[in-house]
């Protein structure tokens, strides 16, 4: 996740409303939203709250009844909709690859419309397939029906990125993928975003996904109203109103654990056995490379527990998972070279985690 709040506004909705013909109540009303450049905004809310309608108004698949849409500062409410859409990546849950086009041709749709030359298109297709982790020579000439659901959605994302749009709109893109593949594809998606830094609006109905992927979360409420638009941390800790609090639900405290990276925490100091005094902190034995092997002394217990480690790039959620899994109250946090950075106690979680100053 990159820093949110920084940078200029890429998409702005100004007083957007949508009332469908013959409907009595608007699907979206008086919506104001500013999506900062290079960030992921997750749209979440109960069914029929207008999150998909809002997304589709951004590329004018649905025309707003009133209000203005600004893309990178330009009013795009009245420009040619087809030309606008070629500037915006669009990925949907059912993927919608063209079954009669090869994977390569599917990705090349928008570049072809834009009239790129052949060599440039073919280079771009290969680049994108690499980017989504598919070997071009194996997949370029295959057809969509020869691919699994997860692979199809990777191609869907690649197709959305084809003409290098600055904005991507994604409508529950990982919703129809099995949970294990979904988790992997989410991780890949975050890695991808590190490289491409697009402005992404992403509709989901899964709060875990919203917290995991979002730099910001927009919570939609009944009647197409925006209840809160803020960082996941703020949504979870300081819900703006009853509705958001109820929507976020009782799991908020646990979900927050996955937002907190271990590297940001003030960890319990530990000493190498024999070098430091046992002044109440645990000590460990290390192998020749300095990697921790076992606990030598842990205060308050005669038989030190098994030493389990968690990388410092992980989150508190991962640490808790490991503690529960190995049934120990203490987990060692290690850096990229497997050197011990510190330890995290089970009781630290309850007593309140201390983050480093300035982190």
């Amino acid at each position, binding site marked *: 996740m990159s820093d949110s709040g920084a940078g200029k506004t890429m998409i702005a909705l100004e007083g957007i409303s949508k009332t469908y013909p013959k409907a009595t109540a608007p699907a979206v009303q008086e919506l104001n939203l500013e999506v900062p450049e290079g960030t992921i905004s997750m749209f979440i809310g109960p069914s029929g709250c207008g999150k998909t309608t809002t997304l589709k108004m951004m590329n004018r698949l649905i025309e707003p009844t009133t209000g203005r849409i600004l893309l990178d500062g330009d009013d795009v409410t009245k420009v040619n909709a087809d030309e606008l*859409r*070629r500037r915006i990546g*669009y990925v949907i849950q059912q*993927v919608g690859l*063209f079954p*009669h086009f*090869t994977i390569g041709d599917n990705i090349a749709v928008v570049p072809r*419309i834009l009239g790129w030359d052949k060599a440039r298109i073919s280079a771009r297709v290969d680049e994108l397939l690499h980017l989504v982790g598919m070997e071009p020579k194996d997949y370029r000439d295959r057809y969509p029906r020869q691919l699994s659901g997860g692979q199809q959605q990777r191609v869907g994302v690649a197709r959305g990125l084809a003409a290098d749009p600055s904005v991507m709109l994604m409508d529950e893109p990982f919703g129809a993928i099995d949970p294990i593949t979904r988790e992997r594809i989410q991780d890949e998606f975050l890695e991808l975003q590190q490289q491409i830094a697009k402005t992404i609006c992403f509709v989901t109905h899964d709060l875990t996904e919203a917290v995991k992927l979002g730099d910001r979360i927009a919570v939609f409420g009944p009647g197409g109203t925006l209840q809160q638009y803020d960082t996941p941390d703020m949504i979870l800790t300081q819900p703006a109103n009853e509705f958001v609090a109820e929507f976020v639900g009782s799991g908020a405290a646990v979900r927050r654990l996955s937002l907190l990276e271990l590297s940001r925490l003030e960890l319990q100091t530990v000493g190498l056995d024999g070098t430091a005094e046992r002044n109440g902190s645990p000590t460990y034995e290390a192998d020749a490379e300095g990697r921790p092997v076992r606990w030598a002394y842990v205060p308050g217990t005669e038989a030190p527990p098994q030493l389990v480690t968690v990388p410092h790039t992980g989150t508190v959620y991962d640490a808790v998972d490991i503690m529960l899994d190995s049934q120990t109250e203490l987990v060692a946090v290690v850096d990229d070279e497997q050197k011990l950075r510190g330890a995290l106690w089970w009781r630290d979680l309850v007593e309140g985690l201390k983050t480093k100053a300035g982190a």
Partner: protein
Amino acid sequence: MDFFTYVVTQLNQLVFYGQQHFLLVGIAVGIAALIALAAGTLLHTNRLTPDTWSKPVRMGTREGLLIASSAALTIPSLALFGMLQPILGLGATPSLVALTIYAVYPILRNVVAGLSSVDDAVLESARGMGMGPIRRMLTVQLPLAWPVILSGIRVAVLIIIGIAVVAGAINGPGFGSSLLLGLQRLGSVNSFNQVLAATLGCLVVAAVYELVFWVVQRFTTPRGIRV
């Protein structure tokens, strides 16, 4: 004279009738296919019809056309040929017109069914990528609907091969006149052979068309959707 000798003596004449029949059916179904494709595609997409046409008008026109063409199919063929005779006279022209009218329905039905069967997600992603209505129709909808449309054309051909025989009543080309003549003088010399030869001739024409369609289907169905 046995049937085999009859066929040998009449071979040139029979081949000529066969060619006529083949062409008559081909031209009639070809024209009908153009009409059905044009009407079906135009009435399928909102933005291909004039802006003033609202969705109900467009759908109504499409359904109306389907009903009218299916009603046309229920007109007894002999009656239709007879009714066209005062206007268009005798021979090839009225035959062609009548057969075209009959062929529209099965093709139009399948054009509509084929276009409706295209996956909504595919259309939405096409729209979301900025493909306009004409581009969408030509590169996505028609190719995906094509196998269904082609099977409609195939059915039309089989129906029209049979109906084309009746064109003989107004001196139309093909096996019709020969077959009807044979039936009229049934009991006299070679009359049964004449009827049998014309009937089998129709079957041969149908078989040739089946071959043609097999090849056409093989080469025009996009690889990604070939079963």
